[in-house]
């Protein structure tokens, strides 16, 4: 694509950002995405050693559909785990919460500071709670247009206040909280299509200053985790031992659970894309076996990275998202 196009895209993405600073530290972070049926899970990890983050723009790949008509107040997802570091208490805080549909009117003036006068297609709030205290983080959902459409069909924008400026500074994050990690799932919102990666642009602050470091914007790419599992069974009628063998697509690795009916009967690991297990069967009833394999995030190559006009600080990570796959049931008749 033309240089002019990427320049236009960079300008569009930077709508939330203030004047550029200089990228000093090698900031980094990862974004992992898992799509499983109607559930889309996004896991953002931002190490404490990096500068605090001012804005995160997550682009949903081109071709994806989105259902954004839920009324305000609807809970559309959950946040099973998140952590934030509090500069006030010097403690890392474990957070959990919900994703709730909101509106521009409900989130108030913080919207203007984050997205200017743009009108999002939806406003969500990530309610991150610990011990009754809640950090409400608005997330703005836009249908992309123009140059931004090259990065995806929808954009999820989050702005975070600076945590590392002196207490009492206007606009400082509550409790001086710096987001380190957040995994959230939304249900029944996105309809996947194709295998394009999710692109995320992360813009840090200049450490300790509370000013946005637009030149430090970096790319974090995610390839949604997916896999298929096959399972075969062979029964030795003399010993009543059934040998189960299977494969995991892509020659991958993960944690294995074999189910007899609905109960876990064996656990193990998969490496090199294959696994096997032996189980004894009793009685004369037909037994159904299934294999479930789960795997964590893994890193892969980011090449080719987005142009410097879009992500001036380059590509920090390319993450293959976590996955969970279950085989078809295999019936064994003793």
């Amino acid at each position, binding site marked *: 694509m033309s240089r002019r196009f990427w320049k236009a895209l960079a300008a569009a993405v930077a709508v939330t950002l203030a004047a550029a600073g200089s990228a000093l530290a090698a900031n980094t972070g990862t974004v992992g995405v898992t799509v499983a049926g109607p559930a889309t899970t996004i896991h953002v990890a931002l190490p404490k050693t990096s500068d605090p983050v001012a804005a995160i723009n997550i682009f949903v790949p081109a071709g994806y559909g989105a259902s954004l008509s839920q009324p305000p107040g609807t809970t559309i997802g959950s946040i099973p785990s998140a952590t934030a570091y509090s500069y006030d208490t010097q403690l890392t805080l474990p957070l959990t919460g919900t994703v709730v549909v909101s509106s521009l009117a409900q989130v108030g003036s913080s919207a203007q500071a984050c997205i200017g006068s743009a009108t999002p297609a939806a406003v969500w709030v990530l309610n991150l709670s610990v*011990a009754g205290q809640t950090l409400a983080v608005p997330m703005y959902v836009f249908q992309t247009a123009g140059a931004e459409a090259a990065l995806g069909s929808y954009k999820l924008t989050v702005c975070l206040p600076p945590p590392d400026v002196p207490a009492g500074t206007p606009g400082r994050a509550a409790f001086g909280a710096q987001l380190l990690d957040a995994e959230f799932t939304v249900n029944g919102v996105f309809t996947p299509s194709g295998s394009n990666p999710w692109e995320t642009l992360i813009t840090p602050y200049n450490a300790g200053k509370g000013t946005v470091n637009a030149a430090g914007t970096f790319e974090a790419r995610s390839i949604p985790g997916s896999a298929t599992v096959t399972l075969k069974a062979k029964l030795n009628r003399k010993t009543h031992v059934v040998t189960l063998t299977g494969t995991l697509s892509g020659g991958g690795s993960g944690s294995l659970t074999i189910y007899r009916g609905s109960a876990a009967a064996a656990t193990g690991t998969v490496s090199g894309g294959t696994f096997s297990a032996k189980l004894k069967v009793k009685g004369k009833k037909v037994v159904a076996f299934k294999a479930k394999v789960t795997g964590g995030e893994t890193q892969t190559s980011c090449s080719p990275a987005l142009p410097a006009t879009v992500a001036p600080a380059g590509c920090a990570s390319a993450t293959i998202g976590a996955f969970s796959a279950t085989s078809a049931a295999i019936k064994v008749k003793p």
Partner: protein
Amino acid sequence: MKRLLVAALAALALAAPAAAATPGVTKTEILLGGTGPLTGAESAYEPVLSGANAYFQYVNANGGVYGRKIVYRYLDDGYDPARTVQLTQQLVEQDGVFAIFNTIGTEHSIAIRDYLNQRKVPELFVGSGATAIGSGQARYPWTMGLLPSFVGEGTIYGRRIATAAPRAKVAVLYEDSVYGRELLAGLRKGLGAHASAIVGTQSYVPTEATVSSQVLALESSGADTLVILALPTQAISAIVTAARVGWSPQEYVSSVSIDPAVMKIAQLNAGPTAGAGAISTAFLHDPTNPTQKNALGVRLYEQIMKRYLPNEDPKAVAHLYGMMAAYAMVDALRHAGRNPTRASLLLAATHLKETNPFLLPGIVISASPQDYYPIGDTYLVRYGNGYWNVLGKPLPTG
């Protein structure tokens, strides 16, 4: 004739609709007011108010109190007593509330009690166990607390140390406030002849978020027991600091800091053994403790949270405290009669005897005109395997 007149006047008085005369009470509604920190550094107490409100909504959905719905108007004082005064005056004079309920904070409650007592507005179930609240009924009969006595809680820790570890060397971290000083006084009282076991004390002011320097000073005292009379933020800081420097004293933690998140945060920051074996006191159910999951109060709590506060954290025990206080308030309102007055509400509150489902078994709410500490007993609890586990039988805090 005179006797007839008196009888007629009495009958008239009985028949007079209270709704016309009693502020905050209409045919369909009872308006209660309250204040607390909905925002700011102490907003961890917000669930005390929202939990109470959720319980009122549950009661309203089940017919209210004699057909009247309870409306609980609670306002954000930012934990600033001056703001508590201003907002309470607004609730009484502009909104015309029937009573003030569930005020959070000792200093905050003290700041408004002259005003409320002069106007004979009930100030019920204040979130404080301070002597000034619990023993002030002679001068302030319209103000009643709810928490067990701070002095009594401290006394329980002192007695426990004196009997379980009579040779202990005790270090104390306490908040420099009515709350902290009364707990410390109780600790000395409970230690009795062993009061000299206290080898070091350090205090903090509520605005200090970390207490590392105080804990390091206490460690250098040679103590083998650390009594933490602190709010959650500072209690976590103390436990984490001790664990990080390898100091493993027998820890005692005041009961306001036993929300399940406290130890979870401490262990996330200082490893899985931080806080293990710590001792505290508890009078409320813990909805996160699997051993209590089938208790009536826990099941009711979960039902109400799911229905009325679906986006708030059900693990925050402060919600359950708020529901416990609201349960007592509803009970008092019912006993105040079909045509309640402020006087009949006070009368009901000062004669309350109830089994409250949100309290641990064996602990009851009981008040009298001579006893303004409705919760008079509590359990010792020990932290282990991820939960605060009940030890023995209820102990008196009076």
